[in-house]
């Protein structure tokens, strides 16, 4: 866990694109930096990384490194590396636990690099890079892609390839500071720069010893780098937890608020979780036309908060508030208080974007403690304990921006919500069509109607074993094996009074096609019941988390619609909404939509 401290913004270079260009005169005091180092230790960080501006030009550099080491933490630098060309400086820093260097080098062609940083630096930077080889450092060479170096990225691959300790990263330029001021001169179109980066990465994959493992990119929408989706790199992949700007008093979690996933372009993209999206300023200027969202493909609908620490809860007061709430991520940290103890969890998942995590946690209350020992809980009522925001947060003025304290709530929302739906379905009569019957989950719902002669039941499922299991349980049922959108074409027009899809909607390959087909096979006035699950998070121990990671349970969701998004797809397609239940803090993660087939 790294903490990033920006010590001030002065620099011995003056990059054209520098995003802190207008802050160059701001310098943090030494005492301020010292206090931040101490605070990083208190927050449980294991490494302090200094950044700027350029941290190595500060005379206090050794003093700060010493203080970090004395506190038992490792030391890192975000730097242009020039000062590290002095071998003895590097030696002293290594002795003070320097373990991580994130160094800038923007081109393999010296003149281009120097023109970008507006200083004669290239030779010095290479000397530093050579000094850094073979020292066991976590070493990244970062190249900011601007109009100036766009066509010369391969040259940098050639320079880095033989320096085998270094990982090479291409970063999109952020339209901020200098890059914003000189936007048209500096910032390339994202499709153009991504194409150049894709070319350089592909070239690097072929020529660099170590290949993919030494190639990264940052700030580019993942859809523009096909084949390198997993090579994304950002503060989180570097295990930064928190950072503090020079003029800030306390640490804040790292975030991506300067970037966005334009809606609706990115809404259904399966790459959204780890994808940086577009810089807001860029999107404002150019829109989202260059993006190529990946809407097909499977995805998960759950994520883990993994246990990090357990402490005794103080007898009074709030441990979060007393210590300052800002360093804890509202979405990704989770504090659970129970029986005099406070457990701290953190979600590192990149399957979902922070916004989705925040919504699941703070708006919808879809957080559960996994009390099972299974790779994937399948009996929610027994396996999961709902967590709710503690009463102690209610009067707190920090409530809105705090990660919050949560407590287990021993009410069985799953069984309750499930039972309510089952009772109502059991009352259906006439011709019922179920989409996705699964392994007989609902057979006991239909059996009384079937045996009593009030119900005729037809079901569709793509899994032959599911079909067999259902047939065994309900001999009178009519079952079809296949993808719903295909099977439905063979069913009679107006042949059904009710269509039901329980926990099937988000598994459908083409949900809209199924809805249109159902509009044909359900008679006018007939009903459609859709029940499905929203995204939820599980608080788990590390062992539980690892067990789940190793499990072979395949992802099956094609989307993660909630009631609102499902309805948006259905609206205007021949159905009238008659009932809607959204997921909320007092419910399980199950939502329900009920429609009536329009008369015509």
């Amino acid at each position, binding site marked *: 866990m790294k903490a990033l401290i920006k010590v001030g913004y002065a620099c011995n270079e003056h990059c054209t694109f520098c995003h802190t*260009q*207008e*802050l160059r*005169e701001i310098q943090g005091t030494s005492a301020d930096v010292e206090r931040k180092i101490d605070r990083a230790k208190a927050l449980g960080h294991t490494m302090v990384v200094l950044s700027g501006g350029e941290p190595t030009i500060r005379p206090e550099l050794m003093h700060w490194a010493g203080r970090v080491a004395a506190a038992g933490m490792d030391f890192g630098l975000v730097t242009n590396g020039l000062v590290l060309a002095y071998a003895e400086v590097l030696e002293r820093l290594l002795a003070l636990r320097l373990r991580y260097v994130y160094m800038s080098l923007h081109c393999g062609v010296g003149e281009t690099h120097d023109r970008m940083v507006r200083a004669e630096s290239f030779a010095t930077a290479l000397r530093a890079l050579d000094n850094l080889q073979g020292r066991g450092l976590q070493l990244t060479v970062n190249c900011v892609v601007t109009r100036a170096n766009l066509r010369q990225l391969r040259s940098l691959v050639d320079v880095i390839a033989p320096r085998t300790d270094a990982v090479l990263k291409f970063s999109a330029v952020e339209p*901020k*500071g200098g890059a*914003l*001021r000189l936007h048209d001169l500096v910032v390339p179109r994202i499709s153009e720069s991504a194409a150049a980066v894709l070319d350089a990465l592909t070239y690097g994959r072929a020529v660099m010893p170590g290949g993919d493992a030494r190639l990264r990119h940052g700030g580019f929408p993942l859809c523009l780098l096909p084949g390198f989706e997993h090579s994304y790199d950002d503060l989180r992949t570097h295990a930064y937890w928190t950072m503090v700007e020079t003029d800030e008093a306390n640490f804040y979690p790292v975030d991506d608020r300067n970037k966005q996933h334009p809606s609706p372009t990115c809404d259904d993209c399966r790459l959204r979780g780890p994808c940086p999206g577009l810089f*807001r*300023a860029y999107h404002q200027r150019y829109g989202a036309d260059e993006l190529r969202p990946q809407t097909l493909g499977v995805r998960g609908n759950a994520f883990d908060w993994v246990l990090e620490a357990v402490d005794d809860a103080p007898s009074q007061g709030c441990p979060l508030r007393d210590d300052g709430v800002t360093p804890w991520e509202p979405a990704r940290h989770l504090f659970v208080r129970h029986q005099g103890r406070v457990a701290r969890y953190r979600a590192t998942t990149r399957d979902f974007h922070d916004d989705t995590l925040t919504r699941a946690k703070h708006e919808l209350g879809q957080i559960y403690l996994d009390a099972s020992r299974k790779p994937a809980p399948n009996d929610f009522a027994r396996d999961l304990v709902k967590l709710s925001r503690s009463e102690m947060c209610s009067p707190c003025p920090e409530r809105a921006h705090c990660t919050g304290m949560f407590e287990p709530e021993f009410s069985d929302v799953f069984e309750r919500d499930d039972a309510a739906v089952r009772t109502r379905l059991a009352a259906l009569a006439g011709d019922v069509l179920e989409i996705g019957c699964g392994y007989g989950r609902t057979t006991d719902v239909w059996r009384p109607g079937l045996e009593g002669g009030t119900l005729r039941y037809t079901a569709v499922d793509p899994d032959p074993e599911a079909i067999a299991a259902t047939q065994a349980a309900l001999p009178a049922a009519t079952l079809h094996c296949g993808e719903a959108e295909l099977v439905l074409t063979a069913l009679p027009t107006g042949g059904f009074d009710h269509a039901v899809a329980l926990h099937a909607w988000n598994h459908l390959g083409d949900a809209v096609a199924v809805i249109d087909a159902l509009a044909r096979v359900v008679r006018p006035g007939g009903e459609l019941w859709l029940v499905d699950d929203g995204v939820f998070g599980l608080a788990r121990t590390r062992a539980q988390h690892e067990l789940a990671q190793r499990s072979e349970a395949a992802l099956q969701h094609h989307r993660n619609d909630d009631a609102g998004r499902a309805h948006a797809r259905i609206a205007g397609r021949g159905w009238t909404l008659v009932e809607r239940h959204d997921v909320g803090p007092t419910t399980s993660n199950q939502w329900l939509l009920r429609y009536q087939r329009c008369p015509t």
Partner: protein
Amino acid sequence: MIELRFHRDLYAGTAIDSALGRFAGVARFVRREDGADFVVEVHAQSPGRERTVAGELANFALGLTVEAGGPDR
């Protein structure tokens, strides 16, 4: 559009640059020089917002000029 004119005798050029950087995200600015004046055009969605942004920008530039001990000499 609001046009602000900052006279070299009264404002530090670096202060204006810093102010423009600080406000870059909230409106569009066009900066040019006209004789002894630094001229900044402020373009925002509405006249009200332009007034606010122009006013805050001018205050910021003045504040930084004062903190810097006066205009560039």
